[in-house]
């Protein structure tokens, strides 16, 4: 049985980074720089997203003698799911603010 995807603020950050250019392949270090997440935080998130089939991975074809780089891209399901999660996450403070204003 596949475990439920844990949606931490960091996962939302990573999803947001992928959504910024969802059709293009991204490298791990680039995502790390965009989000400010260290490898110890970023890669478990990428692993979980891949385990949930929200992320596809590929090795970049390179010239002979150059080791390939691992690339990542959201799957179609991943794009829909990411949009939904990022949207619902961005609504959170607004909800809190609205409820705060009501009180």
């Amino acid at each position: 049985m596949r475990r439920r995807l844990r949606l931490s603020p960091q996962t939302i950050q990573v999803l947001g980074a992928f959504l910024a250019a969802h059709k293009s392949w991204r490298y791990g270090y680039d995502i790390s720089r965009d989000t400010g997440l260290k490898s110890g935080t970023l890669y478990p998130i990428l692993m979980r997203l891949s385990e949930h089939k929200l992320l596809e991975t590929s090795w970049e074809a390179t010239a002979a003698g150059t080791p390939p780089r691992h690339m990542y891209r959201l799957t179609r399901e991943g794009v829909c799911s990411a949009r939904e999660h990022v949207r619902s996450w961005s609504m959170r403070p607004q909800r809190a603010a609205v409820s705060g204003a009501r009180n």
Partner: protein
Amino acid sequence: MSAIRRAAWRLLNRMAQQATPETRTWGSAMLREMDFVEGNWEALLWALGSITVLGRNSISRGLRSWFDRNFSGRSSRTMTARITSLASGILIGAAVLAVCIVAFVSLVHASWFEPAYGKLADRLLIVVVPETIYLAGALALWRQRKPMAVGVLVAGVILIAHAAMHFITHR
């Protein structure tokens, strides 16, 4: 390549090679990305973070497969029996320790006992003797009653960890 970066690369490479096949791909990916990390200390931090990920992943996968091997596909009765046996092992360990503590207290309060030997008696009766009994017990039980032997070993590990903490903090 600087010495720091080289050491970081070696560490991560070693860890990636020893990772489980499922995790190895991720290890190689992190290793390759390290080439693009600017700064040697940043590269070392990248490697340490990656090593943590690989280590954590290997441990959790190992535990999961151990649990699947030992508990999945078995009836709840078998599982209950195993858990009971494991708990019995831990209880036996606790009982052995209790007996040793009683022996130690009786010894210290004996009129003929030299107080100068207090520390030695403490280490012998509270650590060495119970640990020896745990080890011998676990070896004797291993073939016939493995879960109980594991329970005894767990008690031993808890005691040794406690003793180590005690010695470090009370040195």
